[in-house]
């Protein structure tokens, strides 16, 4: 079979599967909405919502129909990017107008942090190399690195900064930096840098990535075909790099959900007004359309990145095409 046709076939098949997943995942979200006790509209709107607004909501979410046709109604609207209007957080505005820009921010934060984690993991793996005695002693601390939840890291980090600034910088006659005592949203990029650092260290992201890449790199270094490439006098870097792409991309895609979850947490801690911050605010205020719209956006992103990773895998590894085509 022609390689390009094979690739196209794989891409198409994966896209179809992704679409199916999207329908399934949105159905789960919809069923969750419908599982609200009592009158669904009452349960999901803040107290004191006027009746006409409630009726409008019920119609938009298909709550006045049976679950299946209600789902189809809601899916039809959602597919066009119409998730209704915000109730509280930005009352009256379309959900996408509020959630979209915030989500882009979150995606950038999560994506850049994950990419940085990946590249640093690669660097660490190259420096650490084979498992040996000194790394046996590293595994203990490594578990602690793996275990610290991002909000604990964030709390320790901000408190540490706070103490540092208080103890040294202020007394030296310096101006208080903008991110003091808690970094606040502003034009400064510093809060984002800090959030990224916390994301990197929190939830074991970096340690996990490092372990994965290191195991792959060591397996490759000891692989027979690398010895064969050496023996014929060609450079091995090209071969190792190419063979690392697949595990690297897989690790990236599989960790994205964790990082997006972590982004929700660090945005809250650092008061960065991204999708995570918005989600928590909307959840607290029971601004239901915003919560649902954001949930769908997160899910779509995860499916899309998974799809993209599959396609990259198929491009790099001809065996994928053989398997899928």
């Amino acid at each position, binding site marked *: 079979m022609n390689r390009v046709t094979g690739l196209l076939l794989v891409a198409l098949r994966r896209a179809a599967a992704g679409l199916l997943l999207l329908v399934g995942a949105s159905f789960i979200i919809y069923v969750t909405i419908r599982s609200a006790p009592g009158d669904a509209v009452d349960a999901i709107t803040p107290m004191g919502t006027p009746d006409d607004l409630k009726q409008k909501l019920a119609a938009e979410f298909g709550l006045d129909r049976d679950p299946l046709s209600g789902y189809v109604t809601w899916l039809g609207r959602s597919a066009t990017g119409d998730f209704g209007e915000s109730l509280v957080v930005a009352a009256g505005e379309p959900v996408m107008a509020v959630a979209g820009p915030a989500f882009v921010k979150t995606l950038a934060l999560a994506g850049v942090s994950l990419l940085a984690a990946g590249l640093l993991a690669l660097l660490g793996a190259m420096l650490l190399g084979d498992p040996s005695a000194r790394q046996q002693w590293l595994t203990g601390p490594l578990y602690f690195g793996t275990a610290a939840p991002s909000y604990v890291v964030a709390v320790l980090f901000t408190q540490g900064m706070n103490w540092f600034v208080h103890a040294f910088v202020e007394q030296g006659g310096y101006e208080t930096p903008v991110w003091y005592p808690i970094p606040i949203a502003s034009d400064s990029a510093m809060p984002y840098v800090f959030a990224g650092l916390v994301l990197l260290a929190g939830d074991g992201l970096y340690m996990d990535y490092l372990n994965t890449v290191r195991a792959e790199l060591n397996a490759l270094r000891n692989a027979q075909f690398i010895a064969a490439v050496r*023996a*014929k006098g060609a450079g091995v870097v090209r*071969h190792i790099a190419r063979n690392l792409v697949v595990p690297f991309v897989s690790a990236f895609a599989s960790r994205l959900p964790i990082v997006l979850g972590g982004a929700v947490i660090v945005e809250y801690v650092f008061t960065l007004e991204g999708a995570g911050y918005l989600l928590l605010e909307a959840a607290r205020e029971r601004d239901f359309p915003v919560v649902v719209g954001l949930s769908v956006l997160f899910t779509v992103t995860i499916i899309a990145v998974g799809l993209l990773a599959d396609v990259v895998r198929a491009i790099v590894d*001809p065996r994928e095409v053989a398997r899928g085509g």
Partner: protein
Amino acid sequence: MSANLLEIRDLVIEFDTPTGRRRVVDGVTLELAEGEVLGILGESGSGKTMTTLSVLGLVAGRPGIVGGEIRLHDGTSTHALLEALPTVLRRRDDGPVRKDDRRWQRLVHRRMRPLWGRVATAVFQNPRQSLDPLMSIGEQLTESVRVAEPTLAKTEVRRRALEWLERVHMNDPARVFASYPHELSGGMCQRAMIAIALACQPRLLIADEPTTGLDSTVRAEIVALFRELMADRRRSMLYISHDIREVLHLADRVIVMRHGRVLETASSAALRDGIGTRAEYTASLLAASGLAVGQGDAA
């Protein structure tokens, strides 16, 4: 012998295992002349693979080579592979100083780099695992052609590569050129691997049990291919196997190894024709394969 391509003296290789240090190769000495095919015969664990891998500096594991000398002559100069590394080696011999491990490996690799391919190269067992799964046979073969002649034009490189595929009797060289390893059978992978190794135009080819894991008909084909490719004696070969028939068929001289030591060295003719007295182990190998002393040529 003046025209020795390879000389190994008193080579000792050890590895640390959970049950203590084990001596895998115990004072092996051997010589290989230009154009000669030397068979190394032994059961698994006899140290035959480690001996030959050490020639390429590809012994992985701790502590590895702990003593001895390896000399490769590439026609103009002599490379004493282990001489430059005595201090590091000695430290490695003392005990668990593992910090130097990768530094040592880098040193060996840097030293071996100019020799790999052009002077010596290898064909391993499990051909499928010897090929990069993500690159087409053509790409991997092209790499080898460029090792031998880095300045060749692109079209010429491709022509040479296809030529090599023909020389290892591939049916449809153009198709194989564009194929990936997973699309070929084990026998075809090994043919491709042989082409890739020979395309570097090495003076010494190391074949480490190249027929293990292949069907018996394919094995015969691969052995016949080696015999054909070595017929012009433009290169030497170390042929490692546990199959006495293969070794006798291909080699001029045979070294029999067991438990990391060389039991005996004899010419193939002498082994076949039962000239001279044999060590007990060799005799039992001959008897088991139906080539009992005095039976004449049966290979």
